[in-house]
């Protein structure tokens, strides 16, 4: 779907997505990483549980939401990659723990 063909001068760091370690460039947007990582989606919707992937990459569509370091509904297009970040794809509706 998307690839990163250039040698980057940015430092390569590991990120864990749903338990799998993938390499990313430090400081790039997490949403970009999700768009080049099989199976190419970030969340399923609360209504029909259909798959969504980053669409606008500029903070207005909210389709790139994922669970980042335990925090749900994070806009991954606004989050720069840090080494060791743990990401989970977000499934369906959120729940409030009571």
């Amino acid at each position, binding site marked *: *779907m*998307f*690839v*990163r*063909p*250039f040698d*980057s*001068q*940015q430092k390569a760091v590991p990120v864990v997505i749903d338990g799998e370690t993938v390499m990313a*460039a430090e*400081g*790039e*947007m997490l949403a*970009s990483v999700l*768009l*080049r990582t099989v*199976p*190419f*989606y970030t969340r399923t*919707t609360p*209504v*029909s549980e*259909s*798959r*969504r*992937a*980053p*669409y*606008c*990459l*500029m*903070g*207005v*569509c*909210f*389709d790139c*939401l994922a669970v980042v370091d335990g925090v749900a*509904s994070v806009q991954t*297009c*606004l989050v*720069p990659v840090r080494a060791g970040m743990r990401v989970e794809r977000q499934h369906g509706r959120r729940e409030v723990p009571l």
Partner: protein
Amino acid sequence: MSPGPDVIILGAGPAGMAAATRLRDCGVAVTLIDEQPALGGQIWRGIETSHNGPLENALGKDYRAGAGPAAVLRASGAELRLAAQVWQIEEGWRVFVKTGDAVGMVTAPILLLASGAQERPNPFPGWTLPGVVSVGGAQIMLKTSGQVPENPVWVAGSGPLPLLYMTQLLALGGRLAGYLDTAPRENFSKALPHFPAALTGWRDLYKGARWLWQLRRTGIPVISDVAEIEAKGNDRLETIAYRRRGGEWISMPAEVLLAHEGVVPGVHFTLALGCEHDWRDDQLCFAPRLDDWGETSREGLFVAGDGAGIGGAEAARLRGEITAIGIARRLGKSSESEAARLAKSPRRELARALATRPFLDALYRPRPEIFVPAAETVVCRCEEVTAKQILDAARLGGSGPNQVKAFTRAGMGPCQGRQCGYTVSHLLARQQDKSVGDVGFFHIRPPLKPVSLGDLAALHVEESAL
């Protein structure tokens, strides 16, 4: 409590950067806030971390021009609050921001909104499938990650941005299956009368012509006058289908479809603050009503950049300059006559930067199909509400956008109508035979960006500040 700044600026793109730099030159204390972790806005995304390589070469001179202003602003002494989301603004002006885990409030007598534009909502069947990305989004990934799409890539849309993006992608060795040009053929004759006036901006016209020429030279299929597109697939994009005006549907394999139908001012802040807005029929959007200095109908609240109406990066920079001169005058840093004198040259440059706009607006006026999409098209991406459900709700007595919102939940999801607002207004306008200006837009209510209960509970604001 430490004294706050004189001016808060939201948005660190060309307008916000120019305004902040100018105000610092006048000795004004400025706090500049942006969602992104670095300066540049969308047009200069990643400019502070870019290096001199093949990517920067392909992105072009206009992109690289952002590095200088970013460095100057860094050295100006403006307080920068980056990676900070604004979720509420109150009169006074009190701006509530969230930075990582911390929530807080900044206050200032003057607030300048330079938060720019967003891509126009562009609904078509299948636009929610993974693999469908906006052209602006794809360009942001190119700028920030050097990331390119692959395995049949189609671009569908209208306007200068798809042409620029395709030129950049091809210069980097990227491959495209084809370009579906969705600008209606009749636009051309409607744009022609604006051409003589546009010649003042011949440099911009030349740039656009060169992109077109470069695209043609590669031999990539360019299919003109495309009226409708569809994205199909199970869990992700597999096929696209398109139909030229008056033609048959044609299907093609695709893994990525990049779509774009122009940009519109981001009006959520000004709508939420109750500013007067006008419907701009030339750009098919709402824009805040501003005076000569960029001040809205609310005193002390200014707008500069594409949020004031689409004009492009150079116009945004100039509007930032002019607004900063107006703000400095308001703060007593210069007299009325001195401000008028200082603004003379940027105003002249602004007129030049906007010279091609009426021509471009007419040439790339979006096809009507995006405003009244087919019945089963998802209009509200967040709550998955279709065009048919919106029209049905309106028929049941939900006469305006806000009633339709209450009936269907369209506009109630996390994006708060940023992706469906215009479509809902257009659908109602068509059904009720009104102008979109008369139908209006959703009421925009806080929080302007989602904020957790934990964040709200952690908000520490001294009583005396409220």
